[in-house]
């Protein structure tokens, strides 16, 4: 190999690295810009935002919109409801998923293949929206929080993730040894398996909790009373539905419209904040969950 080709190759490598890094920076900007803009807009004078004068950093910082949102009872009520739905819902989710995942992870359980088959089948074929709606209605759960919790008590994908974890990360020998020592299956689950399964329990809590926090559609079809609205439905009203109202309003309402516009930025922030604040601490677990679910499944 001549010196010439070695040199050429080195500069090719450098060029490649530069292209890679530039592309990565462009992607970072594309992802981050909208997020930064929302934060800046929430602190800026709404008139400047509406005139398109805010590009990156906030201009004429004001907390008017925040004050308004903090005084808004509808939003606090939605927040409260969502916290309740998320807590109760996630607790039931994790309990039910564990109850199903553990026995199905046991290779000495007769019939587990058949049961697994019937469970997996539901991932590919379902009755669809209308029969499910009629079922929930006939069970008398419409307009109660149970309509948001019970029909989604188990996510089959999560069940499979958890079962895979039990099978692949907890040595079968431990379970056999505990059995020989006279440990019952319940005790085995609560005293041996679960303490060894903290990572997967964390993943389940996170997946389910974020799901509850962000869901709106079930509430849209099942919840009629505004006092029971979860946060996402309140947001839908503020962000999407009121848009039309704001446009229809007369010119004299100008300042009100302006405020309504900047309130939108604020509600986006305060509703996403809990998940985003949690994010740096837990993203490791999320990644783990995705990987267990996809690669070993």
């Amino acid at each position, binding site marked *: 190999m001549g010196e010439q080709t070695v040199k050429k190759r080195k500069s090719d490598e450098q060029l490649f690295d530069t292209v890679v890094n530039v592309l990565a920076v462009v*992607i970072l900007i594309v992802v981050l810009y909208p997020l930064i803009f929302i934060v800046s807009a929430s602190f800026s004078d709404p008139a400047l935002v*509406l005139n398109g004068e805010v590009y990156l950093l906030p201009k004429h910082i004001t907390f008017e919109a925040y004050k308004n949102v903090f005084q808004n009872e509808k939003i606090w009520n939605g927040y409260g409801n969502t916290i309740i739905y998320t807590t109760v819902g996630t607790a039931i989710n994790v309990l039910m998923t564990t109850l199903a995942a*553990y026995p199905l992870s046991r290779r000495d359980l007769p019939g587990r293949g058949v049961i697994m088959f019937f469970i997996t089948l*539901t991932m590919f074929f379902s009755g669809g929206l209308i029969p499910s709606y009629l079922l929930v209605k006939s069970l008398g759960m419409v307009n109660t929080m149970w309509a948001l919790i019970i*029909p989604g008590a188990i996510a089959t994908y999560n069940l499979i993730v958890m079962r895979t974890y039990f099978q692949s990360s907890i040595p079968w020998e431990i379970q056999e040894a505990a059995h020989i020592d006279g440990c019952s299956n319940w005790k085995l689950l609560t005293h041996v398996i679960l303490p060894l399964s903290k990572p997967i329990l964390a993943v389940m809590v996170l997946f389910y909790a974020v799901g509850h926090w*962000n869901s709106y559609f079930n509430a849209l079809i099942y919840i009629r009373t505004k006092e029971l609205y979860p946060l*996402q439905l309140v*947001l839908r009203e503020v962000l999407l539905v009121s848009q039309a109202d704001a446009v229809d309003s007369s010119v004299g309402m100008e300042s009100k419209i302006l405020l309504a516009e900047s309130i939108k930025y604020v509600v986006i922030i305060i509703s996403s904040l809990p998940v985003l604040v949690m994010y740096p601490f837990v993203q490791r677990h999320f990644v783990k969950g995705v990987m267990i679910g996809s690669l070993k499944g």
Partner: protein
Amino acid sequence: MKSTAIPVDAAPRSKSRRLFKSIVSRYDLYLMLLLPIVWYLVFHYGPLYGLQIAFKNFSPAKGILASPWVGLEHFQRFVESYYFWRLLWNTVSINLFSLLFAFPIPILLALLINEIRSKTFSKIVQNVTYIPHFISVVVMVGMLMLFLSPRGGPVNSILQAFGAAPVRFLDSAAWFKTIFIGSNIWQNMGWQSIIYIAALSGVNPQLYEAAKMDGAGRLKRIWHVSVPGILPVIVILLILDVGHFMNVGFEKILLMQNNLNIQSSDVISTFVYTTGILKGEYSYTAAIGLFNSVINLALLVLVNRFARKKAETSLW
């Protein structure tokens, strides 16, 4: 490999007795399973049973069983309806374009992140790109409205700075699919790339070394080592994507839909919601939902079979 020590006629009985014994000794495991199984029967198989209303004229007063059978009437009505081709085209095209544009991007992103030399920088890119995944659909659509607003939305401000007229993006049927798919890419590319990044980290480093010795440049190493290394994962995810081909993004589409863009935003699942739940035409829309599911399942089976033959990877 039967045991020869046991007499032939005694074998089945002792086998079933052993099975019985092993079931009884694990009764508590079945007890644990009881609640989940009942739940699956009620909430997954219950609606499947309820699907029969697609072939009946369901009236809430009579209940599912007592409502009269009408055969395929609802299906026929749907296929002959004015909306049929529009719904079918929108459903198929949105998903086809998603598969074409949104599916490869996480793969490209993963390959890109894998090529970044600095470990810290690659971690930063990775962690930042999956932040948008945690934003709710409602907020996502709210953000679209603010960003694409003809009044003060940054996109239109930039357009105007270049002297273009403001565009009412969200009220336009022509822009709907682009916006829908583009924002999906923004929101999910990082999250979906996690799997590929994990798969890439499992590729044997010696393969890269060997390719380098053979004189392969960076691009060639990506093409001949990285891509084949993650191909099984790509195929599996592709099959899964096709598996819900007909219902992707329904919640988001519903929020983005308005009278001005309905021409290209009306898909089968939103139609089922608006006509079924809001207008109460249960039987008709249950039939439409069934039509949708059947196409879906057929596609899944077809693609799976194809993948098993061509790529030797499949779901079952």
